[in-house]
């Protein structure tokens, strides 16, 4: 636990990429494989589902520290992080736990899942007594399922590749695959022999940058393949050695959730990897994202759901054929192979070939883009025909050219403090639009303001609080913001009857009065026009 806590602290204390990688390299070179495996597990964002209730922990900390429960909550309000608050409140730190990370997992985390409350408390108290404050903090993060550290996967990959002495692309590929946090699997990840690949591993997804300049700046139209940009779940479907695997871009293995993809896999030849978008598809058109949402994270899919929300793979690319990696080929060649493959599939397969937009000139393309929403798409993907399939997000060959979002002018009505680096600042806001002479909440938004604007809004909130509900403050309805959002849906769960997709603050409309904000009726008619 000492090494891992040290690593966490070092990563937390620097913003320099080079130093982060150096800290990771030091750790992975020094830690025993059994511990390094768990460290990698946590650093790549995998976690235990909460094994301890944070509420119980708060109660116990209050008792240990001899503090009233409300003061623990006030402290949390100032710190903005449960694990950190509890670590700061606990009395007398111990000398530090010498248990290696894998034994912490086996002896101080896993058992908490099955112990009764008294057993949990005994184990938690014992562990607190051993640990230093920073160790307690990290351990709290692990047992409450909230472990996060400011280091991206690419940095972890770079460090591990350096330790293993292999190409980062190979390491990225290995880490994407199925491995367990065991010493043996960790050693296999570091294996300097790069010939043998695990057949379950997907390829790192190639991602596009948003197009910022004019589309004409991309040069001649005929150097580009243009496809619709669909709003689903990016995924790779793999068929190798008779097995079918579905990986999402979030690197979750979700095969079980999509029986349709297993059926698709059954008709695919062996040694094939498809890259595409999981979409709910009916009568030649996608259903909105929230229909697909019902399918997420389910192990058991009811027959009804399969019928109401059938999923297909809108296929963009072909990455592997007959076990051979095609990624270095130009897109045009890969597309030709993909079309050949598509022709062999039965008509009822849960498969669609991403249509290529034929519009001959940029002008025509731009005009067609305006019709994206009618097709249930979000705009275009622009891919250079000569491009190979890269790793990660690289500028130049692939662009996403989204349609402008919807906007609405809304009034800030509630505010709540943020977390992490926004702790103790009011950064999370709820917005309302007019329904008669009342403001009805329509969305929450956190992002879109500059630090300076956040400071100003924070000061406003403090000076114009009208009521408090726990951590939430009702504020004088005075500030107007333009919210941008990607979609609108009817919703019975919201008082307003609508739900906005991905709302964020586009602009602070200082020029507008609350009375100038939009009405619920405006949004309702937008909903109608979108649904039609």
């Amino acid at each position, binding site marked *: 636990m000492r090494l891992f806590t040290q690593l966490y602290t070092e990563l937390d204390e620097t913003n320099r990429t080079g130093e982060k990688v150096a800290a990771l390299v030091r750790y992975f070179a020094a830690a025993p494989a059994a511990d390094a495996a768990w460290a990698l597990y946590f650093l790549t964002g995998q976690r235990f589902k909460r094994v301890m209730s944070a509420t119980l922990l708060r109660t116990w900390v209050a008792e240990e520290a001899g503090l009233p429960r409300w003061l623990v909550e006030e402290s949390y309000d100032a710190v903005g992080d449960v694990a950190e608050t509890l670590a700061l409140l606990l009395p007398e730190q111990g000398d530090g736990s010498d248990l290696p990370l894998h034994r912490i997992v086996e002896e101080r985390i896993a058992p908490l899942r099955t112990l009764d409350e008294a057993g949990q408390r005994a184990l938690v108290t014992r562990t607190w007594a051993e640990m230093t404050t920073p160790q307690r903090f990290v351990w709290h993060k692990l047992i409450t399922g909230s472990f996060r550290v400011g280091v991206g996967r690419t940095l972890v990959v770079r460090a591990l590749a350096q330790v293993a002495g292999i190409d980062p692309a190979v390491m990225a590929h290995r880490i994407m695959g199925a491995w367990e946090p065991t010493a043996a699997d960790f050693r296999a990840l570091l294996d300097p022999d790069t010939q043998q690949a695990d057949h379950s591993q997907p390829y790192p997804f190639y991602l596009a940058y948003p197009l910022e300049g004019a589309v004409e700046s991309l040069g001649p139209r005929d150097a580009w393949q243009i496809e619709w940009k669909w709003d689903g779940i990016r995924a790779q479907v793999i068929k190798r050695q008779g097995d079918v695997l579905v990986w999402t871009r979030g690197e979750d293995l979700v095969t079980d959730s999509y029986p349709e993809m297993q059926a698709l896999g059954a008709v695919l030849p062996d040694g094939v990897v498809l890259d595409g978008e999981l979409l709910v598809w009916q009568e030649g058109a996608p259903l909105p994202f929230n229909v697909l949402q019902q399918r997420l994270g389910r192990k058991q899919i009811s027959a009804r759901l399969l019928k109401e929300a059938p999923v297909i793979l809108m296929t963009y690319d072909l990455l592997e054929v007959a076990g051979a990696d095609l990624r270095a080929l130009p897109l045009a060649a890969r597309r030709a192979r993909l079309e050949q493959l598509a022709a062999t599939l039965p008509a009822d397969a849960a498969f669609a070939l991403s249509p290529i937009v034929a519009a001959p000139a940029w002008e025509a393309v731009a005009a067609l883009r305006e019709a994206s929403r009618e097709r249930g798409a979000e705009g275009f993907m622009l891919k250079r025909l000569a491009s190979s399939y890269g790793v990660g997000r690289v500028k130049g060959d692939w662009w996403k050219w989204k349609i402008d979002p919807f906007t609405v002018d809304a009034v800030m009505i509630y505010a709540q403090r943020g977390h992490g680096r*926004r702790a103790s600042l009011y950064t999370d806001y709820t917005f309302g639009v007019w329904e008669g002479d009342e403001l009805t909440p329509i969305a929450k938004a956190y992002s879109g303001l500059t630090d300076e604007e956040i400071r100003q809004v924070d000061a406003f909130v*403090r*000076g114009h609080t009208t009521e408090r509900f726990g951590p939430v403050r009702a504020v004088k309805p005075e500030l107007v913001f333009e919210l941008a959002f990607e979609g609108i849906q009817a919703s019975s769960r919201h008082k307003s009857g609508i739900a906005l997709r991905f709302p964020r603050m586009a602009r602070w409309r200082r020029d507008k009065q609350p009375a100038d904000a939009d009405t619920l009726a405006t949004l309702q008619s937008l909903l109608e026009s979108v649904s039609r």
Partner: protein
Amino acid sequence: MLAQCRRAKTWRPTEAPRTFHQLQATNLTKPPACGSIQHMTDDLLRLTPSGLYCAAGDFYIDPWQPVERAVITHAHADHARPGSQRYLTTPTGAPVLAPRLDPGASIRTLAYGERLTLHDVTLSLHPAGHLLGSAQVRVEHKGEVWVVSGDYKLEPDQTCEPFEPVRCHTFITESTFGLPIYRWQPQAEVFAEINEWWRANQAAGRTSVLYAYALGKAQRLLAGIDPAIGPILVHGAVLPFVQRYRDAGIDQPDVLYANGENARAHRGRALVVAPPSAGGMAGWLRKFGPASQAFASGWMTIRGARRRRAIDRGFVLSDHADWPGLLAAIRATGAARIGVTHGYTGQMVRYLREQGWQAEVIPTRFEGEPDAEIGDAGPADAEERASGEVD
């Protein structure tokens, strides 16, 4: 008194702070009634739009508007405002107070423990341990004793007089760090961490830039770090106070002014002590070459506060009392009644009441503090404001 009555007419009608109702019960907020001492309540000190006022002795403590007589606990900007006619502070506090006031301001000094009689009030000053010359103000009238803490810490500090508990009936305490998450580690450990950080930076060829409030914290840091490690540079806001501390007999290591020439000469090896605002100035930091930035403050307890500033290290070192320190100080006074000002006042008052004290919030200011109850419009910013070193 006449002059003051005129001012009373120009007092802005101020919006009541959120805690106003708590104060009305004890009339702490009622401004002094012009010329009629009979109308006043029994409280020896009361909050007025100009600050804490003692009617019986006719003086203010740390007033935030110009008054006739101002008793100053210490020279940080939110306690020491210019424009009053006469000031009273400690002999060691006066030299650091003077630069804060208009040239030629009338400053009288009163040694720690010495008694001064004003009308039928006895006033004395006692060490607060916050910075050089900082004082608590003891006010006695007809056997009733009040003490105003100003800002204070209990931890020993080789650059100032140690805090002295003073028995009283009513104690007005600060609560900048009035939450139990704030518990300071021994300063020797913090100084060791700073030394280690400085050495590691040298090894990596980086200049060590340490942000700290120009008056008090900077001098405490200079006295606590190991000057053998390398050259020490200080920002222009820090330098004059280093000299004034030396004049008062406080040990300070040799320092150089952090101008361009010295910055270039000692790049990669030097420790630079500067006020937090310096880091925000375009170009200032660049002259030191590759640098690691750190901030020494009690606010660095919270990771979020450090990350928001996008600095590399946060050293938890404060000139304020931590939570156990506040409670120990309160207990040591023997006071039954506690006024709480600055910081987490609402939380501190509630806690004290639950523990059996008679406690109330004393708002810090009538303006400029958007949330009188919490007073943490960004905690680090609040301390910056409090130290007056924003610019």
